[in-house]
């Protein structure tokens, strides 16, 4: 007699898996990776490769050591690696990139329980750690390889903050032909990736729209050029790829909007009144910490709950 499986419904499952979500994120990051290669040269690919490989290996060895299920095939470590690389200057010494990756995976992600359990975005937290530890190499910006005056200098935001003249044009900001981290400069590529994520329903519009919208609106209020503000720095990368990290952002519609607005406000505070030229990373980390409270405040009310039911 044949053996029949008896299990509780549902007996069907959707096509979405953690792995194919992560694969979609990687695909969405490809335009920016290609752009970084065009802008900064082959070393951007090397840094991205080193970061991804170190993240995957760190995850593998940690899980092996702790006798946990090996989860590297879900590709989330690769995503963390690419995102971290995107947040580093192309000149970063490779050993520092490796250290950052290991910190992201082991300290920020695995020590809190692995995928889905971390309260802060691994790539962002590792980047901030590196900014503090390697403040010299982390702020050494190389201008695009094909630029005539290839001197180390200021990023567009730093330039604007210092009130320098000769700021990059909108077009160069949009195409990313200026100094900055590996993956953050080309707004065009990042927007393309963001649109891909929206179409594939990996993310919803709420966080990016609230984040970018708040930055634009507050720039206008503060008398700064909103377009310049949203096209420079790590805003596009942060809004589409980092602030939308599932584990560290709220899941409800209003929670996402509040989270996005919070990110935007903190970014503006740091950019205009802080001593740092850029604040996207810090804003996301701060809002990551507030996420559990936002989630609690914005819990969706079940349909018809408490509406006339006898208690």
């Amino acid at each position: 007699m044949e053996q029949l499986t008896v299990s509780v419904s549902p007996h069907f499952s959707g096509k979405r898996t953690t792995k194919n979500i992560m694969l979609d994120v990687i695909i969405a990051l490809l335009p920016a990776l290609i752009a970084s290669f065009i802008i900064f040269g082959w070393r951007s690919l090397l840094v991205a490769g080193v970061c991804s490989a170190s993240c995957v290996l760190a995850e593998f060895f940690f899980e092996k050591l702790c006798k946990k299920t090996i989860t590297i095939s879900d590709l989330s470590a690769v995503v963390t690696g690419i995102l971290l690389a995107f947040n580093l200057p192309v000149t970063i010494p490779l050993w520092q990139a490796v250290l950052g990756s290991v910190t992201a995976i082991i300290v920020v992600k695995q020590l809190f329980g692995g995928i889905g359990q971390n309260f802060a975005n691994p790539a962002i937290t590792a980047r901030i750690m590196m900014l503090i530890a390697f403040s010299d190499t982390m702020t050494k910006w190389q201008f695009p390889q094909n630029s005539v005056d290839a001197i180390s200098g200021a990023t567009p935001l730093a330039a604007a903050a210092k009130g320098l003249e000769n700021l990059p044009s909108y077009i160069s900001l949009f195409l990313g032909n200026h100094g900055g981290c590996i993956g953050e400069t080309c707004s065009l590529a990042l927007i393309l990736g963001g649109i891909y994520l929206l179409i594939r329903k990996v993310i919803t519009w709420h966080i990016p729209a609230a984040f970018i919208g708040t930055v634009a609106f507050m720039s206008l209020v503060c008398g700064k050029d909103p377009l310049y503000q949203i096209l420079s720095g790590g805003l596009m990368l942060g809004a589409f790829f980092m602030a939308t990290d599932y584990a560290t952002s709220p899941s409800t519609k209003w929670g996402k909007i509040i989270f996005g607005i919070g990110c935007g406000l903190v970014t503006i505070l740091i950019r205009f009144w802080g001593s740092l030229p850029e604040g996207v990373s810090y804003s996301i980390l701060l809002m990551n910490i507030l996420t559990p409270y936002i989630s609690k405040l914005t819990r969706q009310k079940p349909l018809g709950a408490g509406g006339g039911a006898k208690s």
Partner: protein
Amino acid sequence: MKLHGIKIPHLKNTADTVPIHIPVPKTVTIPMSMHIGKPAEILVKRGDNVKVGQLIGKADGNISAHIHSSVSGTVQKIDQMIASNGAKITCAVIDTDGKQELSETIKPPPVNDFDSFISAVKESGAVGLGGAGFPSFAKLNVNDLSKIQAVVINAAECEPYITSDTRTMLDKTQYISKGISAIKKYMNVKKFIIGIETNKPAAIAKMRELAKNDNSIEVMVLPSMYPQGGEKVLVFNTMKKIIPKGRLPIDVGAVVINITTLAFIGEYLETGIPLIEKCITIDGSAVKEPKNVIAPIGTHIKDLIESAGGLKYEPAKIIYGGPMMGIAVPSMNEPVLKNTNAVIFMDKKEAQLPETTACINCGACLSHCPFMLDPRSIALAYKIGNAEELQKLCVDMCMECGCCSYVCPANRPLVQTNKLAKIKLREYLNSKKGV
């Protein structure tokens, strides 16, 4: 406002197959409980001769249903079987004689007012044929008929594979009409809404034809969005009314009835033949010739599958009902029940579900729950045994449609956990009452 739901494969392969009667099986097993409520009291004993339509189980109490013999023959034994919910129930195993002689008691019921209509529905043995199996007379026995604003006829058939309701609409249109007339006349109902999903164009056309001559009937074509046929979902989408937690459709002026149940009631009023056979969709990846069949209630699965040309592959899972909410059965010797609308035979590949991995907090479960519950938080609260939190999260509202589990990229057993959490909450509330 729009309710959340999911897009799932329709797989309505059998929509065009006109149901055929299967040959009378050698043996049938008729359980005394094929409905929600108390099991019926068995009226026959070993060796008794029975005829088609003969009452063999008597409804016990207000929420129960009569059981009739679906065949003519001899009672081989009175046995015990284990129902899908784990309860032991009495069943009559009947050896058929192949003659299918009708019982002499069968005649169209005398109906002239509300009370006689309800008692006729009770005599018919009708239960909710969409799958729930709630005794129909109990549902229609509304205290205050003036409360009814509309009867919502559930023809959504939102589960994959199943087409037996579609066949009812195509093949039994006249009985649907008869059922509507009876409810209109005896229950004083002025509005009927037939809710159908877009993926059944032939049935929609047929129902529109029916509604053409009767302005009390409205055919509402609804998006093919699971779980469109969920009672609360359907009432919301057809009448824009939210049924509050813990309340019934009648509290917002709705009576919801499945289209096949309605057609059966219409047919019973004309013929007097009680609920003894059922149109069943036979489909699934392991089936050779997917089709609709009409089988006597109590037919064993193995006899049923013969009529569909047998199996292509060895089944790994057999389901009563659809793949989203259906019940997996343990063997081919199980009988089909009153509320069995489909039997799905899945091969190994189809029955295989992806491996469960860690929750990534994507929020897909809460953004697809039709009732806007939060299965992720429910699972956490259940894990740490926090019944108060489960109450706050309204887990008792869960209709177990399975959307959360379906969309979960980590394939976590969310609706399954909700079921356990509901039990936990009930125990907690009972113990609180005890104090």
